[in-house]
Structures are given as C-alpha cells and as structure tokens.
C-alpha cells in the first residue's frame, strides 16, 4: 500500500502532521514531530528519485479520479530531483531549527511555529509533485502563506514589514499565475500539465496564449525574485529567524525556478517560449544585470545575513541564465544549480544561524576573530562559502562548469564573462567575512563553539556540498535526464 501511495505520501504526511502539531503542548514535542516527519519525507523522496533515475515516470491519480479530469501527481526526473532537494534540506534544517529557534524566539509558540513549518514543507512538496496547473496554485499559496507567517515570527519588528511586503508581492505573483492559468484553461479546456502541453501547439498563435504565457512567466519571476522583482527577498531573509531563512533560501525560490522551467520547457515548450515568444531576450539581460548588480550590493552590506540574501538573488541569475540559454545543456546546468545552490545556501545560512546563536548578531564588525572562538562553525561557513564561489571539488564548481560549457557551446562569450565575474564578486564578499573572522583580532580568544545539535546538521550539508561536488552521478544524471525529457532546444 505504501509503495502504491508513495508519490502522495511526502505531501500528505506533513499536511496531516501540521494539524497534529497545533494540538501538541508548547515545548520540544512539536519540533520532534516535525523532524521525524522531515526525515520520513526525505526517505520517501529518495526512494522515489531512485525509481525516477531508472527513467520511470510515476503517475498517481489523486483520490482515484483519472487524469485529465482528476488531479494527477506525476513524477519524472525533474521533480524527482526537486523532491530530493526539498526533502534533504528539510531533513537537515528541521533538526537545526530546534535549538536555534528556541534561542531566538523561545518555546511558547512552538506548536504554531512547527505547524507553519510543516505546512510550508507540504506546499513545497505539493508543487514539486503535482501534475495539475491549478493544484500548483493551491500549493504555492499554502507554502507562501506559511512562509509569510514564518518570516513574521522573527523577533525584530522589521520582520513584520518584511513579511507584509513579501505577502503583497507574493500574492500579486500568485494571482498573475492564476490569470495565466485561467486563460490557458479558456483556450484548451484542461488543467492537466501533460494535456496542456499536448494542446498548446494548436492555439500557439492566439493572443490569449501569448498573454497567458506573459502572466505566468512574470508571476513566477516574482516568486523566484528575479531582478528587478527581488525587492521583497533581502528583508524577508534578513529578519526571519535563522532556521527559516535557511529553509526559504534553500528551497522556496528553487521551487519557483522549477515551476518556471516546467512551464517554459515542459508545458509551453521551448519552441513556443523562444521562437513564438522572445523569452531569451527577457531572461538573459535581466539575469545578467541582476547577477552583477546584486553581487555588487552584497559586497557593500555590513550584515552578513543581508549579504547572503543579496547573494541569493545573484545566484538566481545563474539559474535563469541557464534557462534563458534555451539549450539542453543550459537547462541541465540550471537544474543542477537549483540543486547545488540549495545545498550551499542552506549550509551557509545554517552556519550563520549557528554563529548568531553565540554572537547574537550577524553584523560583520562584531565577528572579529570569531574564527578562533568558534573554529568549527566558522570552518563550515568558509567551506560553504568556497562552494558558493565555485572552487573545484564543490557543487558550486559543478554548476559553474556546466554553465560555462553551455555558454561556450552556444558561443555566448559575454555570458561566460558574466559567469566568471559573478564568481569573482562572490570571492570578494565571502572573502571579507573570512578576513574579519580569521585575520582580525577579537576582544577575547575564549572558545565558545556552537552546540553540537546545530553543528551536526550544518556539517551534514557542508559535507553534501563536497560529496555532490565529487560524486556527480546522481545530480548530473538526474539533471541531464530531466533536460532531455523536458526537451531543451527550441
């Protein structure tokens, strides 16, 4: 029975657990429940990914209603990769959340907090697995509403305004998406993604199809935080509790990137997106400008958390570049970077959370000499930072390699330049932190390492950064498979 319903399990489990979490007494119990669920979800998603890696496409009619009338859950290589990613990040961040959130927020409201966390997880996984365009909207809103709440739970009062503007932009984005889906439904009479993909070519030349495409792309770009629609992101990441930031940075925007890929390649088809519509001319310039400008802004920040938030916006530029190249290598590179960036940003924000746990702030000038006081925590930060820069043997290098290869294959030399310059800017902003932390004198030299309950999950992600940087079979395999199945070239 479990094998049969395995596809739905990762969504249903956290959804039910969220309701249970609310009923639990404040304290550690909600956290334990959430962590357990996260691990179960991770195990299930791994099992699913192994089946998808064999080239199998799993289809599951929700409630027994056959597609295209009912809602279909459909798992191919692209969503399998995404599910593993969400599962892995949750499995690492949820254990981390316990001590970190307790220190930052206290435990009185822990049932509600973990309920929101579980809802967020359910929404993300739902988007990943569903094969129905409207169902995507519902899950998108479930995870978004949960993340607004989570951001607002930050203890600084600016967290409230950050959450509010996140809510406004997020809702507008989701509504744009809804408009696009509505128009598509009017044109084709279906909401099933596979069905849509089959019917869109017939209506490709109508203005309604063009409008639908525009609404969906722009709506998703708001969720992705593609420059210049990224303004909600830096504040939301900065003022959310550390564990929430790690989770948001590692999975939230990635899921939206996946959706963009799914729509651009899988549903509308590369032919429509790049021949009928000039998508490359929209995505590539925005990605380039965003990548360079937000990297520069990141250099100027004096709060490390904010710096990493801007760096996230810049990194999204890499993914969008890969999408905009409209080649199957570029698409594979984008998918790889979705996965790899989640690993590095997750690790970075968790290391940051562990540092904040002791220092109490992420202001850079208060991190002087912290490398000597918390060597293992800081080492995790440095290692994840190297991965962000794209040093060989880390996942960052793998994505960069494929991106550069894709750009050279197409002869896009300026993009090669942008990619490498982006890395150099990352060297500068990560280097600043390293310099202050290791090569400046702090007030005391006393050891005050973060507790093991924070260090272990952080290091698990750090090691994953190196593991998947050296053994690329799973990630590259899935990404190439996904790129093939989505059909990269117009």
């Amino acid at each position, binding site marked *: 029975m479990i094998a049969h319903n395995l596809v739905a399990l990762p969504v249903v489990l956290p959804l039910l657990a969220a309701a249970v979490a609310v009923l639990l007494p404040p304290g550690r119990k909600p956290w334990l429940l959430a962590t357990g669920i996260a691990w179960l979800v991770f195990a299930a998603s791994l099992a699913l990914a192994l089946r998808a890696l064999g080239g199998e496409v799993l289809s599951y009619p929700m409630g027994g209603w056959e597609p295209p009338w009912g809602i279909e859950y459909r798992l191919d290589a692209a969503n399998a990769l995404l599910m593993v990613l969400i599962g892995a990040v949750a499995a690492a961040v949820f254990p981390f959340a316990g001590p970190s959130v307790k220190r930052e927020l206290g435990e009185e409201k822990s049932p509600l907090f973990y309920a929101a966390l579980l809802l967020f997880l359910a929404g993300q996984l739902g988007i990943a697995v569903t094969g129905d365009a409207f169902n995507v909207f519902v899950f998108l809103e479930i995870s978004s509403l949960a993340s607004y709440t989570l951001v607002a739970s930050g203890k600084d009062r600016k967290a409230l305004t950050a959450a*509010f503007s996140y809510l406004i932009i997020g809702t507008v984005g989701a509504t744009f998406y809804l408009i696009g889906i*509505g128009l598509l*439904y009017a044109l084709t009479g279906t909401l099933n993604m596979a069905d849509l993909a089959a019917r869109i070519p017939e209506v490709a030349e109508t203005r309604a199809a063009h409008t639908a495409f525009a609404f969906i792309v722009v709506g998703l770009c708001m969720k992705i935080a593609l420059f210049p629609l990224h303004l909600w992101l830096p504040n939301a990441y900065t003022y959310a509790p550390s564990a929430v930031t790690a989770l948001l940075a590692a999975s939230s925007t990635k899921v939206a990137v996946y959706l963009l890929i799914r729509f651009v390649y899988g549903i509308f088809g590369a032919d429509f997106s790049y021949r009928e519509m000039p998508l490359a001319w929209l995505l590539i310039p925005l990605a380039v400008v965003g990548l360079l400008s937000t990297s520069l802004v990141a250099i100027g920040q004096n709060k490390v958390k904010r710096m990493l938030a801007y760096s996230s916006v810049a990194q999204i530029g890499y993914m969008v570049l890969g999408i905009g190249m409209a080649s199957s290598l570029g698409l594979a590179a984008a998918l790889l970077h979705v996965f790899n960036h989640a690993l590095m940003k997750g690790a970075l924000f968790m290391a940051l959370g562990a540092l904040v746990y002791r220092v109490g702030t992420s202001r850079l000038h208060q991190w002087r000499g912290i490398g000597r006081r918390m060597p293992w925590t800081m080492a995790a930060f440095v290692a994840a930072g190297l991965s962000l820069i794209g040093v060989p043997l880390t996942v960052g290098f793998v994505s960069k390699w494929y991106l550069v290869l894709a750009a050279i294959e197409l002869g896009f030399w300026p993009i090669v330049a942008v990619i490498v310059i982006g890395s150099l800017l990352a060297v500068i902003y990560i280097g600043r932190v390293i310099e202050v932390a290791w090569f400046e004198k702090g007030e005391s030299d006393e050891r005050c390492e973060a507790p093991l309950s924070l260090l272990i999950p952080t290091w698990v992600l750090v090691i994953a950064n190196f593991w998947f940087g050296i053994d690329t079979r799973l990630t590259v395999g899935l990404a190439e498979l996904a790129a093939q199945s989505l059909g990269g070239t117009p």
Partner: protein
Amino acid sequence: MNLLGHYNYIVVVVLMMLGFYTVIARDNLVKKLIGLGIFQVSVFMLYISIGYVSGGSVPILTEGVTLYSNPLPHVLILTAIVVGVATLALGLALVVRIREAFGTVEEDEIRLKEDAEG
C-alpha cells in the same frame, strides 16, 4: 468585435487595474490589502465568466437538459476564494501587529522609523 457582448471581461480588466493600482500607489497598508482583494476578485470573475456557456443551464443533472454551464471554474474559484480569504486574514493580522510595533499603518511613516533604527 462586440464590446458590449464582452462587458463582463471589461469589468474584469477595470477591476483588475483598479485593484493593482491601489496596491502599488497607496501608502496605507489596509488600503493596500483592499486593493489586493479587489485585484483577486477580478480574477475570480474572469474564471466564472470562462465557465459560462451561452444558453447553458445550471450544472445540475436534470431531465431534458443537455447544455450545462461548465462547473469546473466555479469549483476552482471556490478554492481560490478560500486562499484569498486566508491571505487577507493573514495580511490584516500582520497589519495589526505592525500597528502594535510601529504605532502606524502608513508605509512612509514606518519606513522613516525603520531607517532611524538603521
């Protein structure tokens, strides 16, 4: 093209623009939410219009009726209304908290206070 025949779509577009403009242009957070609500409602109307089949009856199986309106968009919009209500509720809750924390719901005043904190 028969403009009047498509009057419902015109209403949708007008409402959409009104709502969207309010979201962007107003500084008052509550007004922003109202704008957001109007914006969303316009989309609901778009969906409901799509479901209309000219001459179609209420989508309840009845003897002797063969042409029904499409019920699916209505069902979808029921879900979307729930989502919209939840969003609005959460937004208003945030506004209450913001008012408690900053003493105002005007965006420009809040921004001034935030900048003063640095």
